[in-house]
């Protein structure tokens, strides 16, 4: 299945990636090759098969957490790695709704 250059741009926009011309061209080819390869799955009739959405076997359901407050991070610890901050907020470019 061949991706068009527009497909590549649309996916990149959805994934918040900014690709250069060269990268777009490269990915167009490489992703098309992978999508061609995975087409072999179409040979299988899976209409009656349940998807394996979780790797842990059924019945292995984990116990749930008790509703108790546990210590987290201080605001300073939370912000320690932030590229920009304002007060104790993470600072980001203006958000337009």
């Amino acid at each position: 299945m061949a991706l068009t250059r527009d497909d590549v741009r649309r996916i990149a926009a959805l994934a918040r990636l900014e690709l250069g011309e060269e990268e777009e061209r490269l990915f167009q080819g490489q992703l098309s090759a992978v999508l061609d390869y995975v087409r072999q799955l179409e040979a299988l009739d899976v209409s009656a098969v349940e998807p394996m959405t979780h790797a842990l076997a059924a019945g292995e359901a984990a116990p749930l957490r008790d509703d108790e407050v546990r210590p987290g991070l201080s605001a300073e610890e939370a912000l320690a790695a932030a590229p920009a901050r304002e007060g104790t907020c993470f600072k980001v470019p203006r958000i337009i709704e």
Partner: protein
Amino acid sequence: MTGEWDVVLGLEVHAQLLTRSKAFCGCSTAFGAEPNAQVCPVCLGLPGSLPSLNRRMVEMAVRVGLALGCAVRRKSVWARKNYFYPDLPKGYQISQYELPVCEGGGLEIGAGGRERLVRLVRIHLEEDAGKNLHDVAPDGSSGVDLNRAGVPLLEIVSAPDLRSADEAVEYLKALRALLVWLGVNDGNLEEGSFRCDANVSVKPAGAEKLGTRCEIKNMNSFRFLRQAVEFEVRRQVAVLESGGAVEQETRLFDPARGETRAMRSKEEAHDYRYFPEPDLPPLLVDEATVEAQRRALPELPRALWRRLQAELGLSAQDAGLLVADRGVADFFAEALAAAGRPEAAKRIANLLVGDLARLANETGLAPAAWKLRPAHLAELVRLLESGAVGGPAGKQVLEETFRSGRAPAAVVEERGLAQLSDEAALEAVVDRVLAASPAEVERHRGGKKNLLGFFVGQVMRETKGKANPAVVNALLAKRLGG
């Protein structure tokens, strides 16, 4: 609405569940902390962190599902809803998509022969996003506070069964009251712990095909919901009547202008790329959990509302006021039990929805915090019914007991508020009053019969409200000659 157009309306309600800790981590859900003081690696979406599901959140969802007559799924699945936004730390929201925890059910609204069931489509669990703060810096930058990120939400989606803004408000009030009743939500629209979006469309009256709908957001009061829906209906009708077509879009309500407007950030059509959340196994709700919640379910407001009318003869309105607040309803039940006689119900109800409601409003206190206890109310009703205290004095007693918590009988005693029924004593007062108002007596005799009230009032004033009105009336009738 206009007669030529039908309004079709459904609400999506997001109710914050009253858990102590967040949905997937142990951070506190308390409101009002300094930004980013209630966060941890999980709700910050740090690399390597994983969600760990809060049991109480699930129990609350089951409770709500049972109260609304939903089918509770024994196995539901968590999904990731993927989109980029600064208040969404992981770049996806953990929600439920194809298999929600509850499906179906409904909520009855309306009274006086206009009762109807608003059907529900589904109820699912999800986590809240953080909060974007606008213009935090002089350069117009925004700020992100993640204290709310990961707080558990219940999303309750109604069928498009509502037909007017009034109905929408009524449904929303009833739903809010129910969630508060069940102890799963604080019902606070202003702080955003109970929010709603509306899906609004119009169609020519009687037409089968639904119109194109718009989703309206940002209505944080019942008044705004009404305004937004009314505006949106007018807008859509105007578009259609001028030959245009309604565009499917998300619109924000602007409370300052009372209008809805299309959101500016239209970007690409939303493609949330839902898929099953691999970090959380399917949610299994076992029979024991469902049964425990079913047993713990209190009598629901709608059922109580009916019973108060049918068994105790309360008016639909009084019953409605009593069940609007679980605390008031519980107080009523306790006072009635203390009175020990079903006949006391009306008096208790009257005091609760009347003078007591006013006092509670003035002080902002919930029934549980009142110094006046249910037994006090029962005692006061007994005093009133026996004639030991008259109505106006009773009001004073109520206020004093509410203020101080002292027992009504003691207040009556201390303040000398016992009702005067002694004929001889009252006769003297009546004579004094008549003697002091010869002109009025003359006019009354001349046919102005409504002056009787004036004389009663004067007697009450003389006796500081303690005179037994029945006795006073009889005496006046005798003196004034019928």
